[in-house]
């Protein structure tokens, strides 16, 4: 039995034992104290799946497998006043030390206006997926490629030539480049779904329109607690709800993405620019969503011999969930991640700088209780490059929240 399986067993046995010992069900709602001014909730997600030591399709920027993960999360809100809330969440993945996922102050300056300001480690203004609670709102087990799949780009090491970059195609799980850090390390996703950025955000809602804008230390690909990249990121989103259950959103972001250790001290800091569009429609027992993200990263100098000083990627996916009975639902997601082309010296013609990926995932879920969900999923991946070009994963997940 592997260490992961042993720890998973221990954790699940602990949950089951605690339940029996307490002779009552686990709490099915948040815990409140001090007249409701303090509210604490939590989520435990145990995912068991097949190993992935060759293809790394589901590895995250914390080097965990999204389809084989034990995650604990505790979140809390303290409201000392009607206009102020202190919000935080700590998470532990695969029994690692807990990390602060969110920690910010939320301020509503005017009582009668839906205008809020958040300061600290804040939710992303960009896109729709990043704000959804994973355990209750993710229809399948896996993450969208844009929010999880590691490209071969790194923030602390950069290629000197196009060939340096092309050599790392499909090696986002462990990329290395001649400039900057010489230690092989994981690359970055288009948007990190596992970390939030630090900064200030404002949101204003009026009628069917919701506007949000943020200034943060990191970027979509590399959210940060401290600033190491010589510039701030500006991001924003506008969402429109023309009818109940129908939401359309557009997002944009621009920020310095490379660590100062690999950028020249003079000149403009290289940026990550991104645009996003998302749509959600729900009715009766259906919910359907789609999202597309375009991102482009620039380098300090052009990558010879292509004379290209930036590379791009486009991700798009659609997902849906249908509740068959009060306890059973089925869900699926189709996903695609493509990359811009680059001219190197080794290959005959232009090639995509990273290997394009396609993914399809289907899931069946069963509500044991309102707050205990069991999911089974099958995920198939294809990649136009790398040692392993396709792989199928089977996983089961148990989610409990309160």
């Amino acid at each position, binding site marked *: 039995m592997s260490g992961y*399986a042993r720890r998973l*067993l221990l954790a699940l*046995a602990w*949950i089951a034992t605690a339940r029996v010992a307490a002779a009552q069900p686990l709490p099915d709602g948040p815990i409140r104290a001090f007249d409701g001014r303090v509210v*604490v909730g939590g989520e435990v997600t145990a995912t068991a799946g*097949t190993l992935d030591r060759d293809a790394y399709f589901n590895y995250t920027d914390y080097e965990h497998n999204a389809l084989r993960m034990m995650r604990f999360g505790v979140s809390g809100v303290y409201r000392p006043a009607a206009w102020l809330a202190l919000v935080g*969440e700590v998470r532990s993945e695969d029994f690692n030390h807990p990390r602060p996922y969110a920690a910010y102050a939320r301020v509503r300056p005017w009582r009668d206006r839906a205008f809020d300001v958040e300061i600290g480690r804040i939710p992303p203004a960009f896109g729709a997926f990043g704000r959804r609670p994973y355990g209750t709102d993710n229809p399948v087990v896996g993450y969208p490629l844009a929010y999880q799949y590691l490209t071969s780009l790194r923030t602390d090491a950069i290629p000197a030539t196009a060939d340096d970059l092309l050599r790392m195609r499909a090696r986002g799980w462990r990329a290395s480049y001649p400039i900057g850090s010489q230690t092989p390390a994981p690359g970055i996703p288009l948007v990190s779904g596992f970390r939030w950025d630090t900064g200030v955000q404002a949101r204003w809602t009026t009628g069917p329109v919701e506007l*949000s804008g943020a200034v943060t230390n990191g970027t979509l690909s590399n959210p940060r607690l401290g600033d190491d990249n010589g510039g701030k990121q500006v991001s924003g989103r506008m969402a429109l709800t023309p009818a109940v259950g129908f939401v359309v959103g557009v997002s944009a972001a621009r920020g310095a993405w490379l660590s100062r250790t690999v950028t020249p001290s003079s000149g403009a800091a290289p940026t990550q620019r991104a645009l996003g569009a998302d749509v959600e429609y729900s*009715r009766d027992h259906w919910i359907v969503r789609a999202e597309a993200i375009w991102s482009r990263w620039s380098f300090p100098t052009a990558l010879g011999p292509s004379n290209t000083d930036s590379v791009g990627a486009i991700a798009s996916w659609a997902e849906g969930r249908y509740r068959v009975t009060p306890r059973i639902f089925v869900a699926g997601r189709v996903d695609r991640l493509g990359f811009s082309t680059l001219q190197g010296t080794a290959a005959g013609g232009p090639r995509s700088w990273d290997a394009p990926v396609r993914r399809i995932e289907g899931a069946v879920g069963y509500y044991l209780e309102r707050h205990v969900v069991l999911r089974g999923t099958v995920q198939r991946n294809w990649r136009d490059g790398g040692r392993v070009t396709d792989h199928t994963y089977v996983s*089961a997940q148990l989610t409990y929240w309160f």
Partner: protein
Amino acid sequence: MHTSLHAACILAAVALTLARPSGAPATHGGTDSDPAVRSARQPAGTGAGSQRLTTGAADVAPAGGRAPEGPAVRVTGTIRGRVELLQPRTEPVSRPSVADVAMGVMHAVTDRRSVIYLDPAPRAAFDARDAPRVHLDQRNETFVPHVLAIVAGTTVEFPNSDQTYHNVFSLSKTKSFDLGRYAVGRSKSVRFDRPGIVRVFCDIHSHMSAFILVFSHRYFSLADEDGRYRLENVPPGTYNVMAWNESAPLESRKVVIPETGGEVEVNVALGRR
């Protein structure tokens, strides 16, 4: 692969463990396995799983051993009193959504009232009657009323009076249903044929919940905001007055309605201070 399959088997086994075993103690007023539900489904003394569950009052032996009067009895009594909730009420709150950019609002539930019912019920309680319709509204992201007491056969309408979607559902063993998402101005309905407690939720708003207590008879009363209740037209006999509140364990008091009728006062304190 081998170890992960092992882990998957363990996961499935624990999932089954987490699923509530039948007869396990439950939160107060929270599930079908509560004493309140058992009492509502069947008269006291019949025991769990008794064949008397659906046979009606004709087979019912009251707690005092005397048969309740039939429909022809004209002398009746009244049971009235007050249910005092000793422990503080726990208001439902939203899960702390760290991803929610807006401040949000507090959703206070003010009508967490108690339900009082007779166990066993007089035989007349089971007479055939019309199937009524009642409303459980969805307003300001709150179910109104929060506690609904109905007789089996009642159809409950769930209108959406909000400007947002709601998705009313229940996983209760008494009645499992999912009405799906529907917008303001629309209403969907569910008929409740089996006695028991039904916990109702909204799939979209985690802080929304309500209780529907379904009785096989009509001798029940929803206490007012001060806890006062009144059960009228009770035939002479010996009964248990059961007091239910979601925040406290079920309590019972024995009461006798004399042959001459009259008014009997029964006060109940629920929970611990």
